[in-house]
């Protein structure tokens, strides 16, 4: 066990959770995010809650951040120069030619990160099988560098066709740039991604080059500040593809952390599901700005091998978290067809919902919930007392436009917000062939526990789980992240025993490369994992399978491997084909768990002597106002079942339990709600 701090920076709030192994207790903190200086918000959270002597003894700082994605969103990164195979420098701009909004004839794709005059051709050519078709013209590289220097390029991406099969020309070009004195950052495509598809690999390499300096600057500044505050442990950051990596490794592979933010909650859900045997889970993470949902099957978040951020594909493992712009701060408005819409605009932390009395005047989901009594008395941990009159005034603006009563309008805001969240859950469940009714809904984030009961009714889900520290659960998830390193290489070959042996050679190389990425003392603790992308000959898309392995080598015959693929194919597509099976890519992962921690029953700080109170709130199940009992989560007796309707408050969130529901506090720290 070890003391650790998790800090998760969201769009509205920066959440902190500190775990003390001695007392087996947690410290919880929530502060507003500082958009222009996210590291400041992070330090604010620490200094507000973690005493210096504890910080000194802390072994791990685990971080989830939106810095990388913001660099892309705002297009504030390095000036990148690109070296491309002659004849193909426009691949980055042509993309795959698809039009995301097909009826919108003035739709414009995102501008390429590197303008054409900084995408320079280099004479060279590798063939698909790795044979050199045309030698590298070294002068082209030197000449390109002259142009880059003149233009002030501080980061260079090298992406040649088929370099994932034979990287010789990319490596020589990198050496030439260094010999010629270039000192800036260099991203080389075959090191960023060993997978085929030139557009996707080029984009990933260019994104890496673009965010590298900014991410490095951010992480170095943050680490320095932490050291000043006497933290001497290890700094870790979550990966888009689950797990975490050290800051120094992330400085070398920053593109792996682009989705660092929303993944932490999904990771936590996976850890909880494994530890407490909760079965398959759907997460419902509702923050101030966005709703994130992810499917946890067999204790692991669903993983994709390609991500997508603002229209740019990234060839890197990617936890399949779906997001929409709907959260507690989402603003309700009336559209041109006279319909009530909620979000995606958010009141954020400034000015915040109208009832926060910080100058917000537009009605938000939080205003509607408070107006309907769902937030209980409206006393927040920060000392803010919610203002019912301000909520009412904001709601009446929209109600007047719709020619309906305020109460009906408030109900509509909640229902519409929940319906769009439920739709997103349908996308990752029903539309993927998974029945949500057989799963539990794990609700967290500031507003997740508030809306879970309504969402569950919408989706006909019976069991809802509210994890410990639900309002800061993403930070809780950070605390249990595994250290992870992953790499992949494409090599298309029919499945036979000879090729399988070659596949194992590739895996050996991949694992050797992963182990050499950063020296560490615990190399014996790494566990090896292998996945193989396979398909039928003639197809483009593949299915990823996990074969049996022994010490990082596939431990099955070619025939068995093909059988595993066909079973997976059948369960995805409902049938198999009479065609040759192929290996497309091999994927190697090293995994190492942090020291274990205990899932103690959450130790809440509220007074335990409160008397049971009740107040009127709207029951969506009954369609009428009812008496809701008020509880503090801290006083709930473990194992005892209570009947709804009830409102349970804790430091960072409020749990709304409708009249048809019963609930109990389990001794594993979770609150279990059962519908009907």
């Amino acid at each position, binding site marked *: 066990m070890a003391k650790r701090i998790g800090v998760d920076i969201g769009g509205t709030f920066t959440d902190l959770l500190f775990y003390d192994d001695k007392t087996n207790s947690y410290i919880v903190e929530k502060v507003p995010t500082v958009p222009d200086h996210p590291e400041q918000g992070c330090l604010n959270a620490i200094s507000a809650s973690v005493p210096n002597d504890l910080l000194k003894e802390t072994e791990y700082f685990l971080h989830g951040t939106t810095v990388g994605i913001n660099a892309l969103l705002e297009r504030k990164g390095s000036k990148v120069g690109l070296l491309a195979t002659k004849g193909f420098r426009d691949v980055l701009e042509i993309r795959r030619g698809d039009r995301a909004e097909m*009826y919108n004839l003035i739709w414009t794709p995102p501008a390429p990160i590197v303008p054409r005059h900084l995408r320079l051709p280099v004479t060279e050519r590798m063939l698909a099988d790795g044979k050199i078709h045309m030698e590298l013209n070294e002068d082209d590289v030197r000449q390109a560098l002259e142009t880059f220097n003149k233009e002030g390029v501080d980061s260079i991406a090298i992406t040649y066709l088929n370099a994932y099969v034979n990287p010789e020309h990319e490596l020589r070009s990198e050496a030439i740039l260094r010999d010629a004195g270039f000192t800036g950052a260099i991203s080389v495509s075959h090191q960023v991604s060993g997978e085929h598809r030139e557009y996707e690999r080029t984009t990933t390499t260019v994104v890496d080059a673009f965010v590298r300096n900014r991410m490095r600057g951010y992480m170095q500044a943050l680490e320095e500040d932490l050291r000043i505050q006497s933290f001497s442990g290890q700094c870790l950051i979550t990966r888009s593809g689950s797990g975490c990596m050290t800051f120094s490794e992330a400085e070398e592979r920053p593109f792996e952390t682009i989705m660092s933010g929303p993944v932490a909650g999904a990771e936590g859900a996976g850890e909880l599901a494994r530890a407490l045997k909760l079965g398959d889970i759907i997460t419902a993470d509702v923050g101030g700005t966005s709703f994130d949902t992810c499917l946890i099957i067999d204790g692991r978040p669903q993983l994709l091998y390609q991500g997508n951020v603002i229209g740019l594909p990234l060839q890197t493992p990617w936890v399949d978290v779906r997001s929409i712009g709907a959260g507690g701060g989402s603003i309700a408005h009336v559209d041109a067809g006279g319909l009530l819409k909620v979000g995606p605009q958010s009141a954020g932390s400034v000015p915040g919902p109208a009832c926060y009395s910080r100058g917000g005047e537009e009605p938000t989901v939080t205003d509607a919930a408070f107006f309907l009594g769902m937030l209980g008395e409206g006393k927040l941990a920060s000392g803010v007392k919610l203002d019912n009159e301000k909520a009412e005034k904001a709601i009446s603006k929209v109600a007047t436009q719709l020619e309906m009563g305020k109460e009906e309008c408030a109900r509509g805001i909640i*229902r519409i917000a929940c319906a769009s969240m439920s739709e997103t859950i349908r996308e990752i469940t029903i539309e993927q062939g998974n029945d949500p009714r057989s799963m539990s809904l794990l609700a967290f984030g500031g507003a997740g526990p508030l809306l879970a009961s309504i969402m569950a009714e919408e989706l006909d889900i019976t069991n809802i789980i509210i994890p410990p520290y639900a309002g800061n659960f993403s930070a809780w998830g950070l605390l249990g992240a595994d250290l992870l390193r992953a790499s992949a290489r494409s090599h298309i070959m029919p499945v036979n025993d000879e090729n399988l042996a070659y596949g194992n050679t590739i895996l050996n190389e991949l694992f050797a490369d992963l182990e050499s990425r950063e020296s560490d003392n615990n190399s014996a603790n790494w566990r090896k994992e292998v996945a193989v992308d396979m398909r039928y000959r003639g197809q483009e898309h593949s299915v990823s399978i996990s074969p049996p392995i022994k010490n990082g080598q596939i431990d099955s015959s070619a025939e068995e491997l093909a059988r595993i693929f066909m079973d997976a194919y059948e369960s995805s597509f409902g049938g198999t084909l009479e065609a040759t099976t192929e290996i497309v890519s091999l994927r190697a992962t090293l995994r190492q768990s942090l020291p274990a921690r205990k899932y103690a029953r959450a130790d809440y700080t509220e007074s335990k002597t409160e008397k049971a109170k009740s107040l009127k709130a709207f029951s969506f199940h009954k369609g009428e106002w009812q008496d809701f009992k008020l509880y503090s989560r801290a006083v709930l007796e473990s194992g005892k079942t209570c009947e709804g309707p009830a409102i349970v408050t804790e430091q960072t969130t409020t749990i709304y339990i409708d009249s048809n529901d019963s609930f109990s506090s389990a001794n594993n720290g979770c609150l279990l709600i059962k519908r009907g």
Partner: protein
Amino acid sequence: MNKDYFTAEVIKDALVAVGEEMFNAMIRTSMSPIIYESNDFAVGATDAKGNLLAQGNGVTAFLAMLDTAVVATLEKYPNKGDINEGDIFITNIPYAGGGSHLSDVVIICPVFFEHELVAFTVNKAHWTEVGGAEPGSVSTRSTEIFQEGLQFNFLKVYENGKINAVLEEIIRSNVRLPDSTMGDMYAGVAAAKVGANRIIELFSKYNRDNVVHAMQELLDYGERMTRAELKKLPKGEFYAEDIIEDDGLGNGPFKICAKVVISEDKILVDYSGTDPQVPGPFNCSFTGLVTGARCIFKAITNPEIPANGGCFRLLEVTCPEGTLISAVAPAPVSIYYESLIAAIDVMWKAMAPVVPDRLPAGHQRSVGATFVSGMHPDTDKFFVMGEPLVGGWGASTKLDGDNGQFCCGNGETYNIPIELFESRYGLQVEQYAFHNEDGGAGEYRGGKGVVLDYRVTSDEAYFTYAATRTESRPWSMDGGQEGSNNYAEIHRHDGDVERHHMCTTVAVKKNELIRVFTASGGGVGDPKKRAREKITSDIKNGYITEEQASLDYGYKAG
């Protein structure tokens, strides 16, 4: 306000989601790369009368082909008792509702709740094979429909839940790849059933009246949203005409024209004056034409409103029977999509000056479908490479045109990565880049077309190509320059360069080069007015040459 206002809202969202769900089910259950990789299909649901409730599309070219198929089914089976639980219908008749070319087959599934017909789910997908003269059932040289494959005239492929064994046997005996073809059919049926089950669930959860009410509300909402947009459009009559160069058999050029009349409560598009149907396979049926008109209608009202029948209540399309874009039997229609795209483009051309914030100048206007077949040099197996090509889009009044995108008839269409391409086919790609053909100059510049070089590595390969804008050019606006042409070249060993606009299986020898150019888009505004720093930047980025800067833009260095 109705008491069930929000229930209706929730049901409406769920109905729209049915479209999405069927879209994914189709991809999941399909075994054909054309469907799960090129997304050449559409799925949707209608109410019991055939009003479109929701549609999920991979390409734009199917926008009027689902609801019209249901309406035509209802016309063919008008009596009570004609349509029963467990029936599923199939059609690919080009000249009736749901029709495009024979390769695109529609599956129609009536949905019953407590023995009442309450809705239809429907999908249309490009099948691998429907028989006919050419492998793959697409022909650039057919002269009548009978050469293009099997026709299914709104038949019951399932009756009372049982497959029609006679029909199945006929299909199996008349196509080259019977298992693939039947696989395509099962995928369509599976997707339609997924949607049907979901609609039945809605009926049992929210009760019949609420759902029927929500369906009508959904259509009315579409109409209200569209009406609000229509109000903002200028009223009047707007006309444009254009040409299609060739019908595949060397005839042409042919005229295509559109008159758009915008009044307070509707948009009328009249295609009268378009040339009669042609001997070659470039004919498009009236259903295809309605799709084309709907595409532009959507673009100039609000493209973000989910497409439903309510939106299209405000659109009327007319065209006399028997023209190039309202062809009747037995006209060959295999390459119908090029004429459909021309029909989209001519309405676009009429409207662009009127709604310049929604419509740019003319684009490449062609799928530019390119096929090369031959024996793979490494595997000695026969290969067929077929791909649509990206080209330049037109400039608008505020922006330069987009470079290298698929045409308006495509959508979620993806090019083949070169790293996959070369291992699969007996071809090597030597360049895939923007070209510097003249065209598209303007205050706002047209987007760049591309040049693509295929070097043949098999002993011999066969090249097939079909495009328009091979002689005419993408149109410009406000004094901008027209775009450039689509065309192909074959560079022979003896130094000869052949130019092709339309060709079928031309032999090309090992190491000879096939070079395809796609058009650049049209420019907007006088090039002389283009901001100097933009011209400088264009030269620096190689989007224009120094010579073009001087000739087209009157630019002087220094």
